[in-house]
């Protein structure tokens, strides 16, 4: 029983990360119509930025704040300089540019900070004794923090989309860019805003999980794959869907890998992807995505 609970918590914790990064992917996807393959590397770079701020003597919370700011600005810059000039409908080019960014950012971090793992201090105490006991299992402060922050971010995004004019414009631009443009919205700027938000969300995630994963250039790579799976499963235009799907994938994968011998740790990742494929066969636009109707 305790073991089951511990595994559930583990899976839940992984799922939080998948959902968090998936959320960033969805925000970009809604505007740009393409997966930002560099999202994970941007988050990784932000975590290293926070490390640099800590290294010059700033407290960790300030460093995270600054790293998020840098993430927001760089997200906006990337959109303005590398994505917007490609124009609309250039999906393959966007995909390629983000792949190029992926390679470049990853290697750049290696050039600047070297290949050895670094440690980023945690915001909350993260020693061996720092956990909340839940029926005998341990819920670490660090995990709780991630959960709380994710919920806050999700609530903020929901409120933004639901109750503000900017959010309404973002939804309009996502669902029909041309009509939105005709209605006087600056669709490009709205997309840029999406990239900035995603950059910020990614930076927040990177800095929050770096203490538990160790700070390396490869820290986000696996998460990116799961995040893509989560975003797909949730339906690419649904932020809440991405988070839910992320949690679902985290839980199911962890339980199956622990209790089904055939799967084991080797095929852990495979489980997530097979679930993904299965769901897509039944619901081609994910669990919470809206169907796209094509007019001929």
């Amino acid at each position, binding site marked *: 029983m305790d073991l089951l609970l511990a595994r559930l918590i583990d899976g839940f914790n992984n799922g939080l990360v998948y959902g968090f990064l998936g959320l960033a992917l969805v925000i970009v996807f809604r505007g740009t119509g393409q997966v930002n393959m560099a999202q994970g590397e941007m988050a990784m770079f932000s975590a290293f930025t926070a490390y640099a701020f800590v290294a010059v003597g700033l407290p960790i919370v300030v460093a995270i704040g600054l790293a998020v700011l840098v993430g927001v600005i760089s997200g906006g810059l990337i959109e303005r300089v590398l994505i917007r000039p490609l124009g609309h409908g250039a999906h393959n080019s966007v995909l390629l*540019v983000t*792949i*190029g960014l992926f390679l470049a950012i990853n290697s750049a971090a290696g050039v600047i900070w070297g290949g050895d793992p670094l440690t980023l201090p945690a915001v909350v105490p993260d020693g061996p004794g720092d956990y909340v006991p839940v029926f005998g299992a341990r819920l670490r402060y660090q995990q709780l923090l991630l959960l709380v922050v994710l919920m806050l971010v999700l609530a903020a995004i929901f409120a933004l989309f639901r109750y503000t004019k900017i959010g309404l414009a973002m939804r309009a631009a996502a669902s029909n860019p041309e009509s939105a443009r005709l209605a006087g919205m600056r669709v490009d700027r709205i997309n840029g805003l999406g990239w900035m938000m995603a950059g910020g969300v990614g930076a927040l995630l990177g800095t929050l999980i770096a203490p538990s994963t160790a700070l390396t250039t490869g820290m986000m790579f696996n998460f990116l*794959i799961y995040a893509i799976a989560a975003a*797909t499963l949730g339906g690419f235009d649904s932020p809440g869907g991405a988070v839910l799907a992320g949690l679902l994938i985290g839980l199911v994968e962890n339980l199956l890998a622990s209790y089904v011998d055939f799967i084991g740790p*080797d095929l852990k*990742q495979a489980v997530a992807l097979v679930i993904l494929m299965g769901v897509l066969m039944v619901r*081609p636009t994910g669990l919470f995505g809206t169907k796209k109707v094509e007019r001929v």
Partner: protein
Amino acid sequence: MAATFPLVVRQGSGVHRAITIGGLAAVALAVYLAPFVLPGYRLNQISGALVLAIAIVGLNLLSGFGGQISLGHAAFFGLGAYTTGILTVDHGVPVVVAMLLSVVVCFCAGVIVGLPALRLQGTYLALVTLAVGILFPSLVRRFEDLTGGSRGLFGISFRPPENLAYFSGALGRTIWIFWAVSIALALSCLVVRNIMRSRLGRGIVALRDKEAAGIVMGVNRAFVRTVLFGISAGIAGVAGGFFAVMNGIITPESFTLLLTINLLVGMLIGGSASFSGPILGGFVIYFVPVWSSDITGGPISGVLFGAILIATVFLFPQGIAGGLGALTAKVLTIVPSPPALHAPQVEDLPLPPSEFALSEAESADHVDEGDASAGPEGTMAASTPR
């Protein structure tokens, strides 16, 4: 007589045929001479680039002509490599037979992966292929008994026939593989070219450009999409087979997402939906990392590779082949442009009266408009009302 550029050559005419045959002969000559002039290690590198080129030819059929981005091609490449490896090492099957069987296996795998394509579109389908691509290395690790797992599969070799003096000597094996890879690449190109000129090819392009319209016009979507996946995977399988025999050892780490990304990059840098692009792309993705790490070394070569990729998207949106094509069009224009691709069908349009000669005034017109619409097919299309 002062030549006016671009020269206009009619497709199918004697001059055009001479140019085509001359070009092919030049390529064949280069392949023939390469073993005599290049040192062995260089020849080996070129074979490596050609193997990647074969895989890109397959990917280009699916993604370039078919418009379906595949993020899992490394899986087919790897499946081909492992099929060839397992058949030759464990079962003593001759390499050529093993490679043919690899094609069959990969074709079937491709058709199965293509099945979701009947229901999914665009990004969602790309992500299914991503899933397949990521699954493959973990499956290899899981079924260790068959594949050798993380340790790898050893001892795959492709010996030249012993009774040929040409392939004996120190470099015999290198030269043999170089020839075999060259021939396989030529065959793959031929297959793709013939497909694209057939009914199937027109269906592929129709589905890429406007799926609904294609279906209305009678393209059998289920058949075309799955077979497209199958053939593309089959060609990738050949490349994988050669990869296995060249290296002698294969490990799951060779077939990760990074390989897929490299292949995609090669296709787009070389020029997607073109015939020469994939070959150029194969050389680019093989030699750019080699040179950039020669020059700089260490992780900065990765920065360079990424930067080159991004720069290419902006500077040569049509890839190197597209850039070269635009240059050639300033010197030589072939009309009518080949069918398929995005060019309008021009067979039934009026042609210039003779092969070279337009009257002075007319040719001046053509030149201007050709430049304005910038592209090999621009000359005729722009000057004729549709």
